[in-house]
């Protein structure tokens, strides 16, 4: 590595000091960076490789072309565009609605004092400790029964899936927002009330804009969570055209050996890049939100 050149230029003594202070840190950082990066470089390289197989993807960046992107976008067996759209719609609506429902509850818990407040807060967090996918059998049977009565929200519908996801709207998210709401001084509310504003007006026009950062974070976390959700989506969405990316792409490479590996990689890159950009943009807020919510009781 570059350490040898540094040795000859700076001489042993200063190199020793430099290495003891920051040099070894670079060494660790480089090793871990390689570990972090190589699967991502591999998938990028595989996606640019026109040859479809797993073996063909092993020579990193040996061939570069966009054939596999075209293939995944035009394959009638794998309607990637539809999957992408379905995922986007489901995750966006779920994210927005989760933020709205969670913010409503967090406002009540943070600003109002009512009987059952403490119990309610604890209950919501405890119930959320049991992930929804634990009850996947019951959800499946419930939605199949509901579908007999109301076909619009039964199995194989996006609406039904979104409704199920909204079952988790309260919970960890509310807790995160609750922590953030608490950081706003209550004097703001009091001033607005003296000026004649009702609770709804205070909430919608004053509080919501002030807590926008945490709303964005919760929306993003919920969005990513929904994009990644496999169990309930796979059980509920039967038709290939209705499925989400995670269900479709998983089936596509159920046996990687025979799958069109570079087409899958192209799909993976296209799905991941927007999420990653968004994530890198918001990562400071995300970490802040996670640690803040965790420490504020």
């Amino acid at each position: 590595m570059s350490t040898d050149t540094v040795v000859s230029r700076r001489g042993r003594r200063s190199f020793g000091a430099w290495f003891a202070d920051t040099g070894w840190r670079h060494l660790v950082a480089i090793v871990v960076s390689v570990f972090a990066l190589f699967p991502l470089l591999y998938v990028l390289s595989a996606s640019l490789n026109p040859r479809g197989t797993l073996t063909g993807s092993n020579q990193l960046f040996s061939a570069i072309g966009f054939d596999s992107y075209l293939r995944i976008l035009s394959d009638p067996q794998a309607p990637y565009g539809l999957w992408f759209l379905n995922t986007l719609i489901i995750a966006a609506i779920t994210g927005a609605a989760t933020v709205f429902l969670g913010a409503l509850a967090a406002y009540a818990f943070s600003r109002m004092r009512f009987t059952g407040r403490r119990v309610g807060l604890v209950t919501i967090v405890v119930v959320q400790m049991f992930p929804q996918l634990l009850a996947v059998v019951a959800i499946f049977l419930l939605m199949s029964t509901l579908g007999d009565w109301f076909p619009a929200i039964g199995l194989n519908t996006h609406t039904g899936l979104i409704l199920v996801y909204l079952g988790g709207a309260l919970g960890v998210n509310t807790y995160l927002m609750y922590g953030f709401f608490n950081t706003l001084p209550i004097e703001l509310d009091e001033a607005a009330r003296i000026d004649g504003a009702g609770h709804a007006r205070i909430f919608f026009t004053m509080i919501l804009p002030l807590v926008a950062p945490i709303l964005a974070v919760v929306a993003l976390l919920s969005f990513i969570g929904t994009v990644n959700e496999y169990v309930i989506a796979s059980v509920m969405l039967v038709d290939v055209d209705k499925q989400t990316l995670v269900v479709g792409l998983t089936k596509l490479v159920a046996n990687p050996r025979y799958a069109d590996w570079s087409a899958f990689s192209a799909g993976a890159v296209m799905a991941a890049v927007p999420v990653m950009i968004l994530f890198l943009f918001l990562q400071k807020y995300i970490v802040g939100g996670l640690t803040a919510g965790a420490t504020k009781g």
Partner: protein
Amino acid sequence: MTDTAEPTAPPTTRQRQAAKIAEAASGPIGWTLLKILLLAIVDAIALYAAYVLFTHQEWLVLGIVVVVAALVNWIYFSRKRVPAKYLTPGIIFLVVFQVFTLLYTGYIGFTNYGTGHNGTKEQAISSLLASAQERVEDSPTYPVTVVEQFGTYGLLVTDPDTGDALLGTADQPLTEVDAEFAGGQAVGVDGWTTLPIAKVFTLSAELEKLSVPFSDDPNDGSLRAPDGQKGYLYVSTLAYDADADTITDTKNGTVYSDLGTGAFTSEDGEELLPGWQTTVGFDNFVRAISDQSIRGPLISVTVWTFVFALVSVASTFFLGLLLALVFNNTRMRFRNGYRIILILPYAFPAFLSALVWAGMMNESFGFINQVLFGGAEIPWLTDPVLAKVSVLLVNLWLGFPYMFLVCMGALQGIPSDVNEAAVMDGANPWQIFRRIKLPLLLVTVAPLLISSFAFNFNNFNLIYMLTNGGPRFDDVSIPVGHTDILISMVYKVAFTGQNRDYGLASAFTILIFIVVATISIISFRKTKALEELN
């Protein structure tokens, strides 16, 4: 709310008018209108739901819908109950899709719900009788015309004895109808489309399956017309005796009776399937504990679930913490660049990572064996021990960036004068870390470690997409493998394999529930104790 400000001077009429208009445009009236509109939508949906439930005669659910709708109206029209206004929408979803489904899971755990047991007893009887049908040797030939209505196919039959026209579908037994006749055969009936012969030929696959009950009594058999022109009477070789509640096989005389196990069973224990859904008490739990072919995998899966979750949390935390300490040096160059690189695995959607790693770890074609190990065939995902190592390695890759970010944040939150004071007292860096920084860090990070444990305890996606639970156990009756964790085992028992066993899967869920509940109660107390330190 409105009349708090006293006017300083008596306003003129025009001023008062202007104030009124302004208030109407911006103030409470707008909100009220919006509220009424939203409530109207909710009520319209409730009304529609009530109507549909009424037609299905679902009285209990109908009652619940009405009560909830009334409650919602009461809450939002009242001037008080402000907290309820903010909590109700979320709580309705929480109750229906979390609390109810958890309770319902509990109920299913005590039933035999699953493949072969997913309907009522009546459905099971008619399905049994329909499946055992054989053509009656000397039955007369019935002239048949295939008709269609809204995508449902029916048979228009001419009775060879009386010449009457009869119409029936798969769900509707034959009943007499007024029909048009041509050459002594009924060829058309009002409301139904007569299909031309050419179309009938293309439907042979559907017609083979079409079996029209002769009457309401399943023992009468049914009429089938595989070629769409000539129908024959088919009678079941099973006969149902409603009084004795038994089914008799008319060929060999075996009697199957209802022993309360959800299926008709003969004296020597042979079950007729499909059966029906019934509560079976603790059978599923007893089976899980006593049946060797289930108990074995259940125990090893439980042990592995804990090992997996604990090692995952520990490994990601220590790597993350190590990196945070390494990077916690302001003199280090390119710090932000490294930081972004290290975050990338966390930003990449997790399910895609698992699938990509599964490809890279492929035994004969994967990148790791082919390139990094020069063509060695190391069974990363197919050897029981290596597969577990691989799962942990991939999860380390997935999880360390999160811990890194969290630890970085927490370290920066520790005030620097604490550090200086320790240095003044002559503490060495290791002592400072061990005695001061780590305890302070843990206060912030402990709740996240617990939630990370809970997350990994149920980290379905990683397991399912990386190894699919494999390699499979030998000699077990459920489709699980060495790397399955509890949650993926539930999914497999319920939704894969030839027999879907919802009852057993739900029983497993209840067991997991108890484990998770215990852990969360304990951890809740522990974190409270930690918070008091703060």
